[in-house]
């Protein structure tokens, strides 16, 4: 019986992230539209878009290889698993032992690798440009991300998200290093999710695209998979932000229905707040020049590195 409940709790989390990921995207778009004095599409529009794409014919280039056809599913699977591993409303779920921060970074890296290869597969100029820019961003964002991981791992003593969340809920006090790590994490999240000022998900200008350029040739169900993966990735970063830096409300030791309900409610509230904050930030700035990416992500790296050094210093040397 206990096993059934555990499986159910884990299954709820896996399906929850999948089910509400498009909604979060819908909320960001709606808020953005309202900020620009437009009415904007309804917040469930991303579901309709996915439904539409699933039922459209997938057009393939003549020279598309198996890689091109399988990459969307690989990207979707890797992103879904990664998103489902992040503790959302409760810690100590069945697969919590595998919810390792480094594993999540690796899963996302795998997805990105597959997509970058697929972008170059059919040999169009835009796919190549997109892949090259994506890799530029990745090579700058990943080291910074790992330093963020080190920061929280040094405080919590582990890279397991469940344990980190529990430690942080238990209270670790106000820490400068955590603040710096948060700053770095937000920068990385913006870059990884192809948002302004790094990339513009709404652009029609093929020459300025990063993520969109890589997937420019995709259509039908393949594109649906990629879009769903993009929504999941945004969801993952929201969840990770909530789990690492704002873990309050999460059900930990007490796994009663009430605790779980509180956990779920607070999680959803956090997501909505984040989904509304993102477009507000996006509206205030213009997209940056491609050659500014290293400065943007470099400052994320510097902040995260500073966070790690501060921890070492405050511990009196390790």
């Amino acid at each position, binding site marked *: 019986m206990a096993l059934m409940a555990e499986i159910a709790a884990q299954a709820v989390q896996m399906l929850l992230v999948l089910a509400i990921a498009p909604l979060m995207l819908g909320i960001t778009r709606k808020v953005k539209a309202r900020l620009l004095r437009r009415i904007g599409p309804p917040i469930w529009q991303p579901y309709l878009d996915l439904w539409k794409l699933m039922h459209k014919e997938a057009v393939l280039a003549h020279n598309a290889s198996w890689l091109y056809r399988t990459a969307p599913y690989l990207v979707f699977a890797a992103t879904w698993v990664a998103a489902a591993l992040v503790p959302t409303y409760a810690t100590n779920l069945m697969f919590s032992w595998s919810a390792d921060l480094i594993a999540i970074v690796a899963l996302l890296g795998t997805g990105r690798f597959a997509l970058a290869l697929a972008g170059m597969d059919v040999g169009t100029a835009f796919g190549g440009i997109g892949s090259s820019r994506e890799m530029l961003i990745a090579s700058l964002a990943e080291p910074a991300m790992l330093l963020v991981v080190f920061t929280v791992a040094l405080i919590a003593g582990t890279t397991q998200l469940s344990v980190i969340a529990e430690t942080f809920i238990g209270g670790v006090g106000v820490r400068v290093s955590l603040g710096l790590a948060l700053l770095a994490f937000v920068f990385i999240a913006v870059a990884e999710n192809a948002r302004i000022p790094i990339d513009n998900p709404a652009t029609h*200008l093929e020459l300025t695209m990063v993520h969109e350029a890589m997937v420019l040739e995709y259509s039908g169900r393949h594109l649906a998979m990629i879009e769903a993966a993009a929504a999941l990735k945004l969801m993952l970063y929201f969840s990770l932000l909530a789990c690492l830096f704002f873990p309050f409300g999460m059900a930990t030791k007490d796994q009663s229905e009430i605790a779980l309900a509180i956990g779920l409610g607070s999680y959803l509230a956090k997501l909505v707040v984040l989904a509304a904050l993102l477009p507000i930030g996006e509206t205030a700035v213009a997209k940056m020049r491609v050659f*500014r990416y290293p400065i943007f992500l470099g400052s994320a790296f510097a902040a995260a590195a500073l966070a790690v050094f501060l921890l070492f210093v405050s511990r009196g040397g390790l």
Partner: protein
Amino acid sequence: MSERLQALLANRPQVAAHKPWPRYELDDAGWSAAGQALGEGGVDLLGLWGDKDEVHMALRAVGQPPCVVSLRVRNESFPSIGRYHLPAIRLERAIRDLHGHAPISTPDRRPWLDHGAWGMRAPLGTRPPAARRDPAAYEFLPVHGEGLHQIPVGPVHAGIIEPGHFRFTANGETVVRLEERLGYVHKGIDGLTAGADLEPAAKVVARISGDSTVAYSFAFARAVEEALGVTPPPRAQILRGVMAELERIANHFGDIGAICNDASFALAHAYCGIFRERVLQAADRTFGHRLMMDRIVPGGTEDMAPGGARSIVQTLDEIEPQFAEIVRLYDDTPSLQDRTCTTGIVGNDLVTLWATGGHVGRASGRDFDSRRNLPYGPYPGAAFDVPVLTAGDVDARVWVRIREIEQSIKLLRTWLADVPAGSTRQPLPTTDISGEGVAMVEAFRGDVLMWVRITDGRIARCHARDPSWFQWPLLEAAIENNIVADFPLCNKSFNCSYSGHDL
């Protein structure tokens, strides 16, 4: 070396029917000498176009009145001007494609508007049948070097814009060279107007480039009026000015917003979209058409609705303070300034050589505005400044537009405070309807040149030269050594017309 041109044209007989600029008929040597004068500088090429068995060229020695020179074509060829003066090359390629007159010893023999899809050559000339070619078979200029790769963009773009092909050669993200290929929206304007009555011809001309429909109608009306010796009544003159300035501010609002949007700064785009819409709605209320299409006709204009002047002034009152806010936002957003400043610089030498008009020329220090330099209609005596900047980057082109909007609003307020009463139409003569007329009108992009020859009440030949002819080539120069991702920003800051150029 304008003296050279003067010496060349002194004591030559003028074509009597041509108004208001003089037109001279030259021989081969004279024509080549005019080309050399162009190449030496100090003379602007305003236009170069073909006729049944002639080629015409409009010139202006800087600071002096313009003129037109003509050459009778022999053996389907004429001495190339392009070998002396680069800006003539594309015009000559177009002449050969449309009329079949081949420029002798031109540096570039490739077709321009003819993509091989017409089933004939020289549709305005002898029309010999020709086998259809693959439109994609076009020889781009070779680029040599290590680590270079090409990025073909268009003619079909990801957004809803006009078609044009851009061939980038890049080294990583840096553009080494850009070559344009245009002509995808060729509509046969010259063929459609030839032999047409004045009224249908005016309608065709009004549709050459939809965003400049007022300027084109204005230019056509003026050219016809010059040819026939008609002066429109004062009320019509002022209404023409009102429409031209409304069109200018509507387009500039759209452009400023679109430039910001290309830097993904959607806020300015949203607000500028609202401003543009308000202006268009005011135009609709006042003149019965949002873009004021077909409102200007040879001999005058359609009248405005009663209360129209008040309606426009009210709209301006609403927009002006809000626009000032958006300008402040543009100026105070470092992330946006970082994109526009020092991006896509065009040097003063290039805009001088190409005689580039509009915001492209004025942002690079070319102090020319046909409203002031060759005043017409309601502009003589009107008080307005012509903003000129020297930075030549995207930012400068944005600021020229911002300043022009302010000046246009000032003009509109002056005119609308006191619109003369009376008729808006001067009837055209009914007998002896022949002549040649030329006119230049400042569209929002720059100077439109219009040349007409009327024979027995019908258009024998009408040629419209869009300002984009002398702006497109500079876009190739502007993007050099910039990054690929900045091209949309540079392109939007130029906002050249595809349709006006492709004819």
